[in-house]
């Protein structure tokens, strides 16, 4: 097992040594990494670069980082407008997802300012999914809008393992959308969510999911860490249940991990609130539920509990089997090999961590 950590200054690859995790190699040193994805079908590593000067780039490796290739960047078509009179240009690559076994070369790509792209040839060419781009809600600045960023962005893509034409995306800010016809049409899927920052918190579109994941063994169970708490659906998004720990810590945050066998297990890393983006009491903890969100347990063993200013971004927590790892805005990397019961600091002097995944 390898651990890929995307930071604002490069990609760091760790491997499990005899008794600990060691850095194997650093790639793209000095370059901001916006996305890290490993395609489980081919073990292809994908990296999105967010150059300060030179724009967004996509690189991939088919030999675990020994060599890298670059692909032509997805392009918003000539004439595509973010808003009337405002040409759309790619601001950031946020996420990638393989399209399922029935589409062996298929890759979905989520970007800012809100464009979903699709490739049929393993990423050699991407096309904008016009059906979503032209969805009436996207064209409405009251429904799709930027919040933490200047523009809305697609940060989560879930492909139903039973049916690759059934796909969910999550947009910050807009909410969750679903297609059941392979992307020909899209419908919002936000019933039960709360948009507490809007005059009408029950809007159909205008929500702020921070990250969305679905359980592979039970694909109708989908979790999201949202700006307004933690939500879970057991019926494929027909209705979302608020599973926030209203009297506890598991509420506001960005990162989320789930168990892909047990639909009742999930992990989040709380912050105080949107106005106070620090760990509660300046003490870092991971919250875990084992009963579908009815209760949450704070896990602190091995994590800093005093004057800790670490925040964990949405793509910076990953889980594989019993191992969880997360990287923080202050360049710390923590890892647990017992489902989060105890943690150790693997690195304490990285750059800001923006993406963590296992290979």
């Amino acid at each position, binding site marked *: 097992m390898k651990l890929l950590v995307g930071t604002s200054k490069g990609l760091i690859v760790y491997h499990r040594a005899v008794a600990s995790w060691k850095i194997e190699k650093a790639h793209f040193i000095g370059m901001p990494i916006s996305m890290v994805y490993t395609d489980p079908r081919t073990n292809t590593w994908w990296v999105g670069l967010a150059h300060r*000067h*030179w724009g967004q780039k996509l690189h991939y490796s088919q030999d675990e980082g020994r060599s890298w290739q670059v692909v032509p960047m997805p392009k918003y078509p000539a004439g595509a407008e973010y808003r009337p009179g405002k040409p759309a*240009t790619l601001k950031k690559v946020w996420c990638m997802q393989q399209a399922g076994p029935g589409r062996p070369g298929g890759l979905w790509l989520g970007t800012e300012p809100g464009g979903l792209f699709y490739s049929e040839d393993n990423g050699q060419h991407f096309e904008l999914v016009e059906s979503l781009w032209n969805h009436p809600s996207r064209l409405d600045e009251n429904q799709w809008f930027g919040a933490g960023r200047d523009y809305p962005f697609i940060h989560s893509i879930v492909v139903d393992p039973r049916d690759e034409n059934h796909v969910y995306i999550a947009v910050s800010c807009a909410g969750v959308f679903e297609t059941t016809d392979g992307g020909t049409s899209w419908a919002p899927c936000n019933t039960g969510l709360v948009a507490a920052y809007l005059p009408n918190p029950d809007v159909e579109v205008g929500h702020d999911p921070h990250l969305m994941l679905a359980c592979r063994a039970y694909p109708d169970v989908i979790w999201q860490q949202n700006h307004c708490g933690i939500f879970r659906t057991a019926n494929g998004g027909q209705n979302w249940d608020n599973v926030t720990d209203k009297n506890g810590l598991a509420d506001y945050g960005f990162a989320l991990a789930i168990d892909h066998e047990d639909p009742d297990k999930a992990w989040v890393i709380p912050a105080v609130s949107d106005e106070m983006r620090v760990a509660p009491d300046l003490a870092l903890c991971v919250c875990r539920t084992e009963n579908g969100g009815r209760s949450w347990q704070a896990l602190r063993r091995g994590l800093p509990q005093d004057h800790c200013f670490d925040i964990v971004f949405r793509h910076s927590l990953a889980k594989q089997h019993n191992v969880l790892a997360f990287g923080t805005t202050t360049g710390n990397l923590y890892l647990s090999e017992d489902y989060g019961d105890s943690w150790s600091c693997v690195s304490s002097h990285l750059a800001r961590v923006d993406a963590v995944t296992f290979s």
Partner: protein
Amino acid sequence: MPTIRFTTALQRFFPTLKEQEVAGRTVGEVLEEVEARYPGIKDYVLDEQGRLRQHVNIFLSGELIEDKETLQDKVGDNDEVYVFQALSGG
């Protein structure tokens, strides 16, 4: 024939990039010529709508180009086109 040179920062991505003579009567034409020699380089300098990236500058014989949208500044035979990254960072 005009010449073009580049910030050395681009050599990380295009190691053989060097100062050279290029055909072209506008900045846009010059960049097309460079793209033919170094496929992909245009995407580093321009966005997908063909505009100069926000943090990239192009100087034409010492002066910033005027047309950053469509790159129609005229280039003379004795001009030097200099592609440079703007200062920003941390």
